[in-house]
């Protein structure tokens, strides 16, 4: 094994001139030495500028390289390539916090990055399930509908399913600003990953981090809408490599915000189509699930480290369709989802989170006595059940009119309105404590008769429930 690496490093010095084919972001080279799969490539453009690429397919005849910075300006005879003999690596250091980088982890703000502590393969390796620690620490986001009903847990991956024009960025920024673990003041850091979003969006996040004074703890990886789309496929891997270092080597609580996952998947589809691969659903490659899993699974907590990686990916559902392959596959990998609702958005509710399709899979072990409050599990269960009934009653009311409803159903309408306007809805800088959230939930239930509260125990009803005055 040693000899092989030595051989390859020797050969890595060689430069090949002349590509045999260029197609979109892909460059094909012939007659090279044996090149490793996934190896890092330096492409030398005819004007002497250097770009990075990765080997997508290798054989003894032809090597296919994807060029992250795009292929504009390359020609067949004048394009050179250096095969580096090793996969794409990121030199990680704490000095990357407070800096702006591109998708490959190179400085974007002009000044050089500090010397890294380690060189890490950006593709990472799967975490052994036996080495994981089951995430159980409640993160208070200060947002009632999240804390109360889809609780975020440290080490969780909880995506926001949104649509164009809704306030997912505001929500993510608010969570980044307010998130805290009760009784724990350990070091935190934010890794922000922008994939194919507009500059304004990146600016919005930077401003928001500056305002709250955390910008020194934020590492930004920007691959914006006008950067080559191919770079987006590597951006989250680079960023997660740093996140893993910060969390598992340095023991920090890392929050990773990735926006927008839809653009990542579009780039994958682009490459897959160019390579003539057999598509599965909607033209996306068959390995979309595996590829997304390689990103999302790089979160959690491990034995022997204090740190954690909590992921908050944002994805815009094409056409608000939750069954589209991107949200669908994401939902199968992540530990729940926060779902935005267009109709709530148009009614002016912020955050427009519909609790019914939203879910937090790790919630069950992170709430209750000793963690939040003992009534939390049953209370959230009851709120789900009652709010779900509100939808049925509203459907009925739209057919027969609100006047014709039974008196109990009218109470449900009142409950629903209070719940939406006071519990779900809140200001974009309003930070509610978990007790405040739970009390508000009980206040909403006050609009319902106590016999309807079958998910709660009698003791809980006695202790917390009071009938609403109205």
């Amino acid at each position: 094994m040693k000899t092989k690496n030595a051989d390859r490093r020797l050969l890595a010095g060689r430069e090949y001139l002349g590509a045999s084919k260029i197609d979109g972001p892909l460059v094909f080279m012939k007659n090279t030495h044996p090149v490793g799969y996934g190896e890092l490539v330096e492409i030398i453009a005819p004007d002497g500028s250097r770009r990075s690429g990765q080997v997508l397919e290798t054989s003894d005849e032809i090597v296919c390289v994807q060029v992250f910075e795009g292929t504009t300006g390359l020609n067949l005879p004048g394009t050179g390539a250096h095969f580096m003999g090793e996969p794409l690596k990121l030199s990680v250091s704490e000095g990357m916090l407070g800096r702006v980088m591109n998708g490959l982890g190179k400085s974007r703000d002009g000044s050089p990055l500090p010397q890294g502590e380690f060189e890490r393969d950006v593709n990472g390796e799967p975490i052994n399930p036996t080495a994981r620690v089951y995430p159980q620490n409640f993160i208070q986001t200060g947002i009632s509908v999240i804390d109360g009903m889809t609780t975020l847990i440290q080490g969780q991956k909880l995506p926001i399913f949104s649509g164009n024009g809704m306030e997912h960025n505001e929500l993510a920024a608010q969570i980044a600003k307010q998130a805290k673990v009760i009784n724990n003041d350990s070091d935190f850091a934010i890794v922000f990953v922008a994939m194919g979003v507009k500059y304004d969006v990146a600016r919005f996040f930077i401003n928001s981090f500056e305002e709250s004074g955390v910008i020194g703890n934020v590492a930004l990886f920007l691959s914006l809408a006008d950067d080559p789309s191919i770079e987006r496929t590597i951006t989250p891997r680079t960023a997660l490599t740093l996140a893993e270092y910060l969390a598992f080597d340095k023991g920090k609580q890392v929050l990773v915000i990735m926006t927008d996952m839809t653009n990542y998947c579009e780039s994958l589809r682009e490459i897959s189509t160019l390579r003539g691969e057999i598509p599965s659903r909607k033209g996306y490659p068959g390995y979309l699930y595996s590829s997304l899993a390689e990103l999302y699974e790089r979160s959690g907590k491990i034995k022997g480290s204090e740190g954690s990686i909590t992921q908050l990916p944002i994805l815009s559902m094409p056409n608000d369709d939750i069954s589209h392959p991107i949200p669908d596959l994401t939902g199968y990998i992540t530990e729940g989802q926060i779902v935005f609702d267009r109709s709530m958005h148009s009614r002016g509710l912020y955050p427009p989170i519909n609790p019914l399709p939203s879910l937090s899979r790790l919630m069950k072990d992170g709430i209750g006595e000793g963690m939040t409050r003992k009534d939390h599990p049953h209370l959230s269960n009851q709120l789900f059940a009652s709010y779900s009934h509100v939808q049925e009653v509203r459907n009925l009311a739209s057919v027969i009119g609100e006047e014709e409803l039974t008196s109990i159903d009218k109470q449900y309408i009142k409950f629903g309105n209070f719940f939406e306007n006071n519990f779900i809805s809140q200001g974009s800088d309003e930070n509610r404590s978990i007790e405040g959230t739970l009390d508000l939930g009980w206040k909403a239930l006050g609009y319902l008769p106590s016999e309807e509260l079958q998910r709660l125990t009698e003791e809980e009803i006695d202790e917390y429930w009071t009938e609403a005055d109205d």
Partner: protein
Amino acid sequence: MPTRIIGHVKRVNGPVITVTDITDAEMLELVRVGEEHLVGEVQKLNETEATVQVYEDATGLCPGENVYGSGSPLSVELGPGMIGSIYDGIQRPLEKLEEASGTFISRGLTFDGIDHTKKWHFIPTIKAGDTVNAGSIIGTVQESETIVHKVMISPTASEGVVISIVNEGEYTVVDDIAEISQNKSTDLKVQMLQKWSIRIPRPVKDRMNFHAPLVTGLRVIDTLFPLAKGGTVAIPGGFGTGKTMTQHAIAQWCDADIIVYIGCGERGNEMTDVLREFPQLIDPRNGKSLMERTILIANTSNMPVSAREASIYTGITMAEYYRDMGYAVAVMADSTSRWAEALRELSGRMEEMPAEEGFPAYLATRIAEFYERAGLMKTLCGAEGSVSVIGAVSPPGGDFSEPVTMHTKRFVRCFWGLDKSLASARHFPAISWTDSYSEYLLDVKGWWSKKSDDTWFQNRKEIMELLQKEGRLQQIVKLVGPDALPDSQNFILEVCNLFKNAFLQQNAFDKIDRYCTVEKQVKMLSVVLTYWHRGNEAINKGVPLVKLKRLKVVQEISRIKFTISNEDIDQIDKLELRLEKAISSLGGIYED
């Protein structure tokens, strides 16, 4: 480490590589690729070229590297030491991997599936001079607190006479423990360890007719849609509908002797949850930890895709091995869709012509082959053993008409469809009573009749009819509101509502409710039906519905699941009597 070079790498495309200069590779032979010795399997042979599927990440693999043959197909090691272990998709113990490479799984590591150095206390059950056959039991080992491991002769051996067998004592799995003369040139030496190719079903004597259900302790399953021991069932549901929760609940409480839980392409944290939770949970039947009967296979979604494809076969081969000893084994596969997607991904990389939605044309055959490995069998040693398969399906977008769900439905006889709207209302288990079915009703009727004084079949039929009626009435209610219905019909809604709350919903986190015995299920169903019969009579006599609804005892029925434990179910009889009294004392609208 194998040293026989069978060819050289020609082309690398993700987990699929082309090997050239093939000499004597066999189909499905296990190979080691490159100097890092990545595990692979031969998929296709074409003149001097072979297509190999690699079970590890292929980064760094170069054309020209050697490929080494092992001479045998991808197999698992079977013997004492599997219970309580956690493996990846190709039977590498994850705990050993953690010791070797730390938190992250490195490549090219090789470990024996079971510990070759650990000594087990072997007790022979035969003596020299006895005649033995393929699959005969020659001794036992106490493998875990609850499982007695029966050491068998390989199922491919032929009849022979025992020349010698060791005395009771401590032996490793690779020690020779018996010698058998088979009228061949050499005598057969028997060890506790067996190797078996994962893609070949282990032979049995005969298939048997189903006669008992796999009791899961979940009311909606046991009472309404029972699964026979040795049967197959699919649990399809979109994300968030509780597939994994249902699988966990069954793995925890069902009355199988051994559980093989295959986490196939699922979340890492979920497997950690199982690892954390199972050792603490107590088996209600023997008071021992549930881990004492469980084997876990974890190939999470970010572990190599080919190993995900293999994990299903690894799991079922282990299950068959314990079945051969005469145990009832339940296999949970979560999720078979991820396995099918792995097939699709690999097929795409091999540039095969796709059929529906990019899946290979052989998808249906593979699904059928997998489910056919389940069954209630007369094993080679004459015992009765079973493998029941409970396969989760994750249809994209929750659409049951997609290829994996569709083909799975063709080969399973029981179907527990999960419903998104039930899940949003946090009605768990979210098993829909309109989509689900079980074809095992007649097979298990006899068993249930004994447990329920012949009432089960009839009562089940009655409540299912009520639920059907309720479904139709709900359509009307959606248009005109419940007030427009007469009391007699509104009462159907009321009874079904009670049935859903009190019976169908089950709280997996409640100490009492999470496991419900068959006896309690029978009584609970009977109470609900008593409410229906007596209440209906009362309404026909002119008692208004509001009076029935206001009965305090009805509230109590809805809380039986939390308040009355499996041990004092006599309380339910008393409640039933009180209910009958309360209803018969109700008068008409103007009486009181």
